[in-house]
């Protein structure tokens, strides 16, 4: 038995919005793999819940005519990894979410929950950030779209306003077309683990595959919220695919990240990981794009 207050079950998005307005203090419950655990631990004990688990319209991955990939907020990690659209166009996201927890967690946990709980270690977050994903939030005034970087306000805080629920994650065509990415999760063990550092890098090469048309680098746990290394990305645009470029990416991100000491890992170790993982993920992303790093 869970120690909760009233549980309201929404069957549709408008119903969920009504419930959000009527019960502003209630916690939104999606897959349950975070909220129900926090109820057990006491952190959210006694709170009222709005379960959106039954809104089947929010499940599934689809593609719009302009190429935008739309992931319903209640799509589970397992279904994202197995989606043909994701496997074809956004392989790195499918791989990133296949590193969450264990199989049973991936069969229940949702991408909406993973982003809305606002934690910096979310395995989906850095890859979504690295693809300029957009969160669709639906409230009493209808839907609005927020770039995921602005969606994160602080540790555990996201831009879900009163009356709203997150209904989809959208990845515009320009964000994934011609890009190849790689995500690395560093944890103490291979499964059932929270990332010590997560790093997602994707690149777009010039037509001759000799230079970088663009690179996007995102981190989890390198700051209070998932973050991008914008300055490094800017500096590296147009760079040649050389070992020097790889080193400059590594030292560049060190200027931008600000991880902290925690019981999981000291700050120095995290800094080392940021540098190494950015370099490794970059090299792999270049390889996947058909490029070659030269001396």
């Amino acid at each position, binding site marked *: 038995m869970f120690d909760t207050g009233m549980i309201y079950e929404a069957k549709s998005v408008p119903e969920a919005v009504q419930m959000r307005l009527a019960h502003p203090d209630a916690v939104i419950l999606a897959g349950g793999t975070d909220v129900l655990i926090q109820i057990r631990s006491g952190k959210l004990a006694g709170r009222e819940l709005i379960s959106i688990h039954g809104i089947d319209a929010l499940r599934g991955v689809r593609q719009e005519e302009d190429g935008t990939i739309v992931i319903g907020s209640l799509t589970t990690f397992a279904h994202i990894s197995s989606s043909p659209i994701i496997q074809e166009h956004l392989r790195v996201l499918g791989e990133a979410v296949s590193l969450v927890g264990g199989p049973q967690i991936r069969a229940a946990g949702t991408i909406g929950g993973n982003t809305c709980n606002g934690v910096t270690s979310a395995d989906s977050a850095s890859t979504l950030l690295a693809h300029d994903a957009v969160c669709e939030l639906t409230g009493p005034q209808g839907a609005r779209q927020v770039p995921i970087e602005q969606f994160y306000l602080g540790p555990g805080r996201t831009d879900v306003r009163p009356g709203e629920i997150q209904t989809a994650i959208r990845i515009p065509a320009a964000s994934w077309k011609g890009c190849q990415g790689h995500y690395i999760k560093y944890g103490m063990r291979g499964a*059932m683990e929270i990332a010590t550092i997560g790093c997602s890098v994707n690149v777009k090469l010039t037509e001759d595959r000799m230079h970088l048309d663009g690179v996007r680098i995102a981190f989890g746990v390198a700051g209070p919220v998932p973050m991008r290394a914008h300055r490094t990305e800017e500096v590296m645009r147009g760079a040649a695919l050389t070992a020097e470029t790889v080193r400059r990416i590594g030292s560049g991100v060190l200027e931008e990240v600000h991880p902290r000491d925690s019981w999981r890992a000291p700050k120095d170790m995290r800094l080392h990981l940021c540098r190494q993982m950015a370099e490794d993920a970059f090299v792999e992303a270049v390889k996947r794009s058909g490029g070659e790093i030269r001396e």
Partner: protein
Amino acid sequence: MSKQYKLVTCTINGEEKTCMVDVRASLTDMLRGEYGLTSVKTGCEVGECGACAVIIDGECVNSCIYLAIWAEGKHITTIEGLNRPDGSLSDLQQAFVDETAIQCGFCTAGFLMEAECFLEKGKIYTDDELRRLLAGHLCRCTGYDNILRAVRKVMYQRNGLPQPEEAETLIAKHAPEWRK
């Protein structure tokens, strides 16, 4: 709070069942309390150990962090549903016995449900893949090797393939004389 109850109808091990549950109940609570399916273990209750795993609509999930009210209209399978109609053990259960993949048995039902769930797909997995597929379950007795061996054995059996030679047999065959 005022008490909230709800009628939940779902198919459990092939039979449609209905009961009145407290909305705060987990699926573990419902399966054990209302239906006496005590193979569903109450382990960590926070989705870490996998002892409560059941198959819901073809996917293996931890029933301890799944609300009973979410089961409405779902098809649920527990270990009780794996037995053959005459009550004898399934091939997977028998393999666990034969390979000594059980000691105290607390984790066993969860492992069996997980393995049943992915073996159903009829694929052949490498040992590394099998380890990852079984990673959501903790076993404090066996050290996992026997469990892996049992699952692998059934995987080959069900796909009509011969068993790959065990490492030990290979070593025995190819190792230099002094190692034998």
